[in-house]
């Protein structure tokens, strides 16, 4: 089985290594956050850089500001679209940076630079359905004070960030207590269905018009400016001056209205972001760029390869560590308690948190995802190994000892074969959980089936969600079946008689 695993791994590694074709121009790695506007901007930067001959790659839809920020600082990304408000309120929270000049200075200390504004301000706003707002007579944020019973749902990021809900509540003295945190893209559907009455918006959201939403007036000017800028590493100026100069032509090229339209094209008309970006570049900068579209089959195949890579590597590593740990746990019960306790604690860490914790250590891409999946896979294998060994009847154990077999031979010839069904069941559990959890890898740029799911949620496109979810479910079933087959081949026949 291990040999088969190594073979699969080798094929996967080989396949992913082939993708990196050496070229001439400087490498420019672009990142974007997991909302449409950021993806479109990231796509624009990538295409412009490519047009100058740079080898530009785009890691789309990374899961949150911290992920991109850390990746940029570590040098795994060169440039990504950011907002001045986010920098000031979140990344440099507590530094009280008064103006953009102070911000630039703080960035410089990190080896980073910031472009001028791209031309629009995408700030937070609160929105309600027009009809609902009309019925309740709410126009301004301060009107909300008269409606403590409102059902409110905010994006998770807005719930937690310094300038988000807590600050807004204090600034306006808002009484709402029934406030839920949820994914930004789900909030619109909540409003539509009536499950929510109030949510946070971005001022360039395509949905404002599409869902008939009223943007509440920020009458106390609570929300700061969120001017869109490009954040890039200082060394890009020497490494890829041509590409950077071209990219900075995007400064001042977009207005809020323009951005709402671009967002609407991508989100509501389902035009691929690459195409939206390309059309914009042609219309406003007169730049012709190449948009390569990938067929469904080759896209799914690529996702499958990425997904198998994540699952395969993490599972093999987990097996290699967890079986010896399980043996140790069975031999030394007190140490075993510690081992099992630790792996149980790992299991309770939310996947997303674990992924984000990994980023400062391992950067973005498949590495942090594999590390997290590896950690999650340990518990079922350790526990089943220990349980399998512990379940061997005492008379069998004693017979092996009385025969004069040395401990190592007892382990290999008697104990591990007898524990094989339990160990395999543990590996099977780990593998199936792994296939599901690996979909979160897309949040840190590891690709896999999570990528279409993320895009699908973002675009409210059930077809795309299924493009990730269905293969993921099928893969889980296949993996499960594979281990059934492995069990038939590996578990000694004498043990299967009893079943």
């Amino acid at each position: 089985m291990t040999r088969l695993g190594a073979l699969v791994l080798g094929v996967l590694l080989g396949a992913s290594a082939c993708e990196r074709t050496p070229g001439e121009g400087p490498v420019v790695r672009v990142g974007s956050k997991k909302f449409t506007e950021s993806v479109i901007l990231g796509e624009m930067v990538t295409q412009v850089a490519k047009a100058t001959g740079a080898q530009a790659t785009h890691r789309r839809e990374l899961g949150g500001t911290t992920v991109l920020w850390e990746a940029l600082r570590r040098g795994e990304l060169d440039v990504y679209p950011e907002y001045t408000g986010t920098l000031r309120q979140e990344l440099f929270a507590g530094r009280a940076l008064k103006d953009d000049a102070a911000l630039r200075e703080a960035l410089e200390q990190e080896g980073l630079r910031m472009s001028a504004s791209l031309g629009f301000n995408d700030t937070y706003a609160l929105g309600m359905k027009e009809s609902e707002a009309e019925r309740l007579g709410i126009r301004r944020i301060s009107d909300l004070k008269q409606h403590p019973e409102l059902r409110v749902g905010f994006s998770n990021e807005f719930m937690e960030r310094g300038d988000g809900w807590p600050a807004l509540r204090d600034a306006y003295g808002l009484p709402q207590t029934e406030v839920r945190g949820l994914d930004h893209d789900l909030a619109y559907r909540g409003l539509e269905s009536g499950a929510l009455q109030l949510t946070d918006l971005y001022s360039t959201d395509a949905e404002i018009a599409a869902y008939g939403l009223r943007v509440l007036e920020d009458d106390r000017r609570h929300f700061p400016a969120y001017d869109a800028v490009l954040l890039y590493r200082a060394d890009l100026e020497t490494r890829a001056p041509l590409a950077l100069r071209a990219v900075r032509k995007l400064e001042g090229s977009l207005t809020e209205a323009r951005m709402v339209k671009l967002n609407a094209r991508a989100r509501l008309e389902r035009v691929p972001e690459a195409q939206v970006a390309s059309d914009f570049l042609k219309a406003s900068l007169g730049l012709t760029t190449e948009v390569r579209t990938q067929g469904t089959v080759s896209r799914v195949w690529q996702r499958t390869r990425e997904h198998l890579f994540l699952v395969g590597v993490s599972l093999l590593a987990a097996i290699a560590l967890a079986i010896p740990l399980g043996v140790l746990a069975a031999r030394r019960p007190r140490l075993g308690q510690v081992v099992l306790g630790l792996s149980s604690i790992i299991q309770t860490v939310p996947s997303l948190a674990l992924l984000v914790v990994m980023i400062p250590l391992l950067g973005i891409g498949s590495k942090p995802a594999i590390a997290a999946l590896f950690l999650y896979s340990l518990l079922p294998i350790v526990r089943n190994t220990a349980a399998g060994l512990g379940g061997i009847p005492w008379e069998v154990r004693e017979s092996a000892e009385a025969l004069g077999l040395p401990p190592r031979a007892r382990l290999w010839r008697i104990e591990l074969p007898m524990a094989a069904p339990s160990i395999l069941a543990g590996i099977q559990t780990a593998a199936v959980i792994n296939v599901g959890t690996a979909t979160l890898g897309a949040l840190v740029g590891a690709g896999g089936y999570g990528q279409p799911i993320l895009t699908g949620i973002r675009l409210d496109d059930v077809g795309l969600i299924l493009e990730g979810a269905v293969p993921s479910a099928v893969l889980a079933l296949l993996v499960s079946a594979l281990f059934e087959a492995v069990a038939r081949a590996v578990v000694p026949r004498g043990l299967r008689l009893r079943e």
Partner: protein
Amino acid sequence: MFTLEGVSKRFGDLQALHPLTLTLPTGTTTVLIGPSGCGKSTLLRLLNGLARPDTGRVLFNGHPLPEAPDALLAVRQRVGYALQGGGLFPHLTGTQNVTLMARHLRWPEARIRERQGLLMDLTRFPAEALERYPGQLSGGQRQRVALMRALMLDPDVLLLDEPLGALDPLVRHDLQSDLRAIFERLGKTVVLVTHDLAEAAWLGHDIVLMREGRVVQQGTLDDLEARPADAFVTRFIQAQRPLPVGRAG
């Protein structure tokens, strides 16, 4: 063959064996007998080092059982051991169970085959059942496999813990006859644990009657009957009468 000097053993609050001194003679069958929990199985397991005495020492061929794990393993290879139910490895076939240790010691194939053939004759084990797994064997067959496994390396001593414990009466009767024949043919030192006095008398020369972690009396059944050490000996013998078979020396 074995000498126990001031040996005692305690499991938690339970004093399994009080300090006792005992000699088990070479070339004969000694039966350890007594009611459940009298310490007879513990005593047996002290002989091959599966249990370690708290006090005193166990001598094997005049030498104390070694402390070093490797040396102890070497001793165990000269002491065959089989217990109730056989303790067979369920994932290995009959043959694999029997030859496991010989293969581990890298005996030549021909020698393994020869030895196994001899043991099959000795235990009257059917050749066609050799490739079966323990789960496919009858209780009596399992016990015969366990016996072959214990005898595979041609040990000096055979330790048997209630070898016929879980068998139905007819199978048990057959195996008792076979065991006696085997013991006579091999002439090995055998130490056997049972709680059945008839079986003890049928199989053993020397009987060690135990009670609550102490040896009450050691001798032949005639000794025990004619010159009981205390009232318990008489009660124990009477409790098991009438004996289904004639007494053997």
